[in-house]
């Protein structure tokens, strides 16, 4: 008992000394107001908001605390002592939230800019439409030519500034493409928008009828909505890559001349000695100075079972120390460390995906020069025939507008929206439409093992009574091994009281008056100090539980289906050779890479990509994140780590890998429909362009033919099932 109290006391001191570092991060302005921003881990629900904010506010008067749920950043503002930072961090940790310093905070200015452009375009669209409805329902004779002119001028007043303000994302992207000697869909959009508005403006000046301010503003608004949604997905992915680096405390305990000092990670030099207490992550890469009994290596290898390390063996930053406090010698500084490199790989922008040319862009590459050439030809022709140049210009601009990227611009997104909707019904959530294009070209599939194909399985034989007790307690824990215990029991769970879980150590609870403990040997109070998971029921002797791995349902059949369809199936795992080979034999997978660290996995991926293979990665761990990001396309189960989920193109809910074959099928089918749509819009242009070229287009014909073409491609997309 005394021993335990002493342990508690020393653990409190330890945390206090670690939190001292926060005091140094406080910023103070001239009037003595202190501010500090910290990451708070474990924000899940609305309750967390009020607990976190009121915990900090309860520490004193006039303390402002505001939690941003999206980024998990708590902003605090107070007067008085700067050391309040440490108190606040301490109070939050006592509530069960771990607190980390904000190392890299970037304001997402690009997203804000897009939202602003979209908002302005939206307001403008509403107002222009208000006037356009008046223009559409009647004609110049009824309302009078002067009233029509007035309404045209008002539309111009709204549309022209909006075009200049909200169209900037397209203009910038188009300019960038031109300056790099490329073309993209933004070039015809920019040209189309400008010409439409310019022509409408001159028509208004000359009291004409070809005024299309409304179409220009509406097209711009819809395109901007798409851009904003796209940007939101991307920025949330980057956010979690940044979070990966702050997975570590942000501080390391450096042992110097017998004293322990807490200093920021970025300042730790090579060769320094660090102390890593039980239940904390190794802050940096290093070699062990003494044996570490149990280390959770899942962040690097993806394996859920703890591994024991000997002195002089290498440990990587991010691994979790489950055993007693150990010391390491730092071998790599923060910037060179494995975790930092992993985060860099994930957030690096030169991925295959960013180099991938979308089908729409490929089409625009052919389409842009042809259309612009036709328009020029129309102008030259009509001037040559002897028409005044203003009228010839009007015809040539009509040619551009009638071929305006409406149907073509729609032909890809409508199919994507339909396909994504169909996949969603099957429990597969795709984040981006282009992922479907990339998925359609896949020929090689890399599978991670643990969590994707297999799950841990309880191999200790237990009687139902005992199993029921253990499963009831384990159901309160999110640890993968707890999940294995819960899966092993099929009966009804019992009510557990006084449940408490210590991260990295174990979980305990009271069932029918008996204290049930599940966790490491020291946690349950076993006499031997051994690795693995132990349990203690009431006052009985503690005993160990053993686990092996079992295949998820139907995995074998699904692998066979994929192989029959001609995909190359490869197993890529961080686990030991023996375990990997056992599973690959069972599944008849011939190509196996085992003991692969995240950087090794990347090398395997690159070797496939160098052979011009189109690779689909299916994996769930933090260690797969880089490959998920860089593969041609990627899928991850819903049970995966946060980072894997944000980096993958798609997340599937179902157990097993049935989703992989289904996603590939829909992707191929949607690709066919997209080609059909592009053919349809080309056909539309073949019909409409000669009419425009001949100068027969009136505003009515233009409106009808444009909506008809859009309708046809939309209906075609609905054929996807």
């Amino acid at each position, binding site marked *: 008992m005394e021993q335990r109290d002493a342990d508690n006391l020393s653990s409190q001191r330890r945390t206090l000394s670690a939190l001292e570092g926060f005091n140094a991060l406080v910023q103070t302005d001239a009037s003595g107001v202190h501010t500090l921003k910290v990451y708070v881990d474990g924000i899940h629900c*609305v309750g967390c908001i009020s607990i976190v904010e009121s915990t900090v506010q309860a520490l004193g008067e006039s303390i402002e605390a505001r939690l*941003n749920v*999206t980024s998990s950043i708590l902003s605090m503002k107070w007067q008085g002592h700067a050391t309040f930072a440490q108190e606040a961090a301490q109070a939050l940790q006592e509530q069960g939230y771990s607190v980390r310093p904000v190392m890299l905070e970037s304001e997402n200015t690009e997203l804000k800019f897009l939202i*602003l452009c979209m*908002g302005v375009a939206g307001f403008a669209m509403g107002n222009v439409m*208000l006037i356009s409805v008046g223009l559409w329902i009647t004609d110049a004779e009824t309302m009078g030519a002067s*009233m029509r002119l007035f309404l045209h001028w008002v539309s111009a007043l709204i549309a022209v500034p909006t075009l200049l303000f909200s169209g900037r994302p397209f203009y910038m992207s188009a300019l960038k493409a031109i300056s790099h000697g490329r073309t993209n869909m933004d070039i015809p959009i920019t040209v189309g928008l400008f010409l439409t508005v310019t022509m409408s403006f001159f028509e208004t000046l000359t009291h004409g009828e070809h005024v299309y301010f409304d179409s220009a503003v509406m097209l711009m608004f819809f395109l901007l909505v798409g851009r904003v949604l796209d940007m939101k997905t991307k920025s949330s992915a980057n956010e979690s890559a940044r979070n990966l680096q702050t997975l570590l405390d942000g501080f390391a305990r450096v042992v110097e001349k017998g004293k322990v000092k807490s200093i920021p990670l970025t300042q730790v030099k090579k060769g320094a000695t660090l102390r890593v207490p039980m239940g904390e992550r190794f802050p940096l890469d290093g070699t062990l100075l003494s044996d570490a009994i149990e280390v959770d290596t899942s962040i690097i290898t993806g394996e859920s079972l703890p591994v024991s390390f000997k002195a002089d063996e290498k440990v990587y930053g991010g691994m979790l120390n489950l055993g007693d406090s150990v010391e390491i010698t730092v071998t790599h500084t923060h910037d060179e460390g494995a975790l930092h490199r992993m985060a860099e790989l994930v957030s690096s922008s030169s991925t295959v995906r960013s180099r991938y040319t979308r089908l729409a862009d490929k089409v625009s590459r052919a389409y842009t020069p042809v259309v612009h050439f036709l328009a020029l030809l129309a102008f030259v022709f009509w001037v040559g025939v002897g028409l005044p140049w203003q009228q010839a210009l009007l015809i040539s601009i009509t040619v551009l507008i009638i071929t305006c990227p409406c149907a073509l611009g729609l032909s890809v997104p409508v199919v994507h929206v339909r396909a994504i909707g169909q996949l969603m019904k099957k429990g597969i959530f795709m984040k981006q439409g282009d992922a479907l294009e990339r998925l359609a070209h896949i020929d090689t599939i890399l599978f991670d093992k643990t969590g994707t194909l297999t799950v841990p399985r309880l191999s200790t034989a237990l009687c139902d009574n005992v199993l029921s007790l253990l499963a009831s307690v384990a159901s309160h824990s999110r640890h993968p091994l707890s999940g294995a215990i819960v899966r092993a029991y099929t009966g009804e769970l019992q009510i557990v009281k006084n449940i408490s879980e210590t991260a990295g150590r174990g979980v305990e609870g009271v069932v029918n008056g008996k204290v049930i403990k599940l966790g490491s040997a020291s946690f349950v109070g076993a006499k031997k100090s051994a690795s693995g998971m132990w349990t203690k029921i009431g006052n009985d002797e503690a005993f160990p539980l053993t686990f092996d791995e079992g295949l998820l349902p139907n995995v074998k059949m699904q692998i066979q289906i994929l192989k029959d369809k001609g995909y190359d199936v490869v197993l890529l795992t961080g686990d030991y050779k023996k375990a990997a080979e056992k599973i690959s034999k069972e599944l008849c997978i011939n190509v196996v890479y085992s003991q692969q660290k995240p950087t090794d996995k990347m090398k395997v991926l690159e070797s496939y990509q160098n052979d011009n293979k189109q690779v689909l990665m299916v994996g769930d761990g933090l260690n797969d994140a880089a490959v998920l990001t860089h593969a041609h396309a990627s899928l991850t189960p819903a049970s995966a780590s946060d980072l894997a989920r944000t980096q993958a193109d798609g997340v599937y809910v179902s157990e097993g890998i049935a989703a992989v074959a289904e996603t590939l099928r829909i992707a191929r089918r949607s690709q066919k429909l997209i080609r059909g749509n592009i053919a349809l819009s080309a056909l539309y242009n073949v019909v409409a362009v000669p009419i425009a070229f001949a100068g027969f287009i009136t505003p009515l014909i233009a409106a009808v033919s444009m909506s008809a073409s859009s309708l046809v491609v939309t209906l075609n997309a609905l054929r996807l099932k």
Partner: protein
Amino acid sequence: MDILLYMIPIALLLGFIAVLAFSWALKSGQYDDLDGASQRVLLDDDVEKPE
């Protein structure tokens, strides 16, 4: 129809004010935490109950 000469400028003015209000809201950080805003409505206000 002369009423339109008043109504349209008024409509435009209102629209313009709305755009200004929107850009102010965006700049003052009201779009920074869209997830939090949707959950905060569920929180109780700190109003003391009358005895």
